[in-house]
């Protein structure tokens, strides 16, 4: 589909592309290598292979970093947010795609502006509002915040998927006596699932990696998600580069596996989600 050139003339291009790939990936490879070394070994040999793979780093990091707690906190935050966002965004997208009503354009514009409001503008008053409502140090409290942050994105994305579904299917269901909710769950959902999958992946990734709100709204160590516990872990064992590296690998491994297996959905979704990150 593109220009065709002889392979030989492409060698410099491949060399440059390879150089860029090394730049992107080597730091991550180093992280994995260092996760298998002791801190002393890292300090003596930060860029080489480990003398012996010290897998016990992972066990130690798991125990000392209380990963069983932080992972379940993160999983709860992620799944709770995904659920809320899919429901809230799905309903809103359905309304925008299927009803003609006055105010629809204004609403779309408002959502666009609403998503561009900087987090640091509202995080301060929100924190004190949440403190009054007893929602600080509460995972559901943070899920509500995340859901509000991600639902406009989900609404936009899902609307574009819903618009592309022909009305015929829906009308056929209506003739059979289906109500709005039945149309949504029986007709729309099965057809628009790629859109929902993209939303699940993008929102899941966002919450898994989220730092600013988690760091601000959760201070109780028992409620810390992985992202902020990694930071606490770093200061508590300031010199322990080996354990922190192992903990980091444990945090990114699920993300990398999921990304590599579903990269088309990830890339498409993130490309539409703007540049936050």
């Amino acid at each position, binding site marked *: 589909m593109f220009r065709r050139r002889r392979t030989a003339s492409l060698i410099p291009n491949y060399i440059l592309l390879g150089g*860029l790939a090394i730049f992107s990936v080597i730091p*991550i490879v180093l992280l994995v290598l260092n996760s298998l070394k002791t801190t002393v070994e*890292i300090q003596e040999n930060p860029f080489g292979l480990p003398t012996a793979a010290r897998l016990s780093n992972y066990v130690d990091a798991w125990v000392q970093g209380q990963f069983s707690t932080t992972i379940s906190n993160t999983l709860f935050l992620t799944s709770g947010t995904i659920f809320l966002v899919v429901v809230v965004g799905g*309903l809103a997208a359905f309304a925008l795609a299927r009803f003609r009503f006055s105010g629809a354009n204004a609403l779309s514009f408002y959502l666009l502006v609403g998503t561009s409001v900087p987090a640091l*503008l509202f995080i301060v008053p929100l924190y004190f509002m949440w403190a009054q409502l007893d929602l600080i140090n509460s995972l559901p409290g943070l899920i509500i915040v995340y859901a509000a942050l991600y639902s406009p994105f989900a609404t936009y994305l899902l609307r574009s998927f819903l618009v592309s579904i022909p009305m015929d299917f829906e009308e056929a269901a*209506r003739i059979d006596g289906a109500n709005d909710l039945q149309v949504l769950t029986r007709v729309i959902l099965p057809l628009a699932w790629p859109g929902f999958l993209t939303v699940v992946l993008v929102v899941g990734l966002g919450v898994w990696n989220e730092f600013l709100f988690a760091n*601000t709204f959760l201070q109780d160590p028992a409620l810390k998600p992985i992202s902020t516990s990694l930071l606490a872990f770093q200061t508590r064992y300031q010199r322990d580069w080996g354990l922190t590296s192992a903990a980091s690998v444990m945090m*990114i491994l699920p993300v990398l596996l999921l990304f590599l297996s579903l990269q088309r959905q990830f890339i498409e979704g993130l490309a539409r989600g703007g540049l936050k990150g």
Partner: protein
Amino acid sequence: MAVTPVSGLRRPAQPRRRRFPWRPWLFLAPLLLLNLVVIVTPSLLSIRYAFTDWTGIGAAQYVGLANFQEMFGDRVFYRAIGNNVRWTVLFLIAPVLMGLLGAYLLSTIRRGQMLFRTLYFIPYVIASVVNAYIWKLILNPVFGIGPWLAERGIPWLDIRFFGRSDTSLYAVAFVDNWHFWGFLVVLYLAAMHAVDAELYEAARIEGANPWHEFWHVTLPGIRPTLVFTLLMIMIWSFLVFDYIYLLTNGGPAQSSEVLGTLTYSTAFYSLRVGYATAIALTMTFFSALFISMFVVLRRLGWEV
């Protein structure tokens, strides 16, 4: 021509719906409620607090424009704005050039295109906490890349990158760019794929070299995407927070302070909520300015 209504035909669904104008709003209600509680209300409160001396506890005292007067007389505030401007300029150049280069090179090859694209994108999906940690290790002043190279006879990189006030901001920007530029490759490559192949044929027939092709066919072809990314970078550069907070927290001696970190530390460490919201409002003003540029360009018919 008169249309005679035909009785007995089923009426279309549309008029029936009009009897329930509130129905779409029922579906929209959860979204609007969430938005109202989490974003709109606190944002409006911010505007109010900016004119008070509120500390987060107790009653807020109205102080008029005192916060803004203090802000415009504060050297740290100007330092932060200056750093946001530096950040904007850096990010309008480095990742855009790297993104264009990567995407252009990828567009010339077929074998391995997907693989390279994936590799470039990986740092973008990794948490900022981890990325920051990776580079804290690599750039460590005691055993990182600097001392390592110095031992091998290359002394000029033996710098405390995050610990010196003349390098801290650039070191953080380097790390942020490392995680970000691959994202631009993906956007630019998608745009390049959409450029009409016949334009390249035509350029080839006229004897264009690859540089001419890039300059006269590729760049104009991806202009909407390019302008979009440049605007997004401008908006986002005034909101930058994560990487600076994680790597230097604005230091040393506030040399890498930006409006985001300044707002955060003023609110949550100094507990000067009123003053912090005044800074946050200024931040919002800049991003609103860039967003309106976006809207204006669209109105002018640029396909941004």
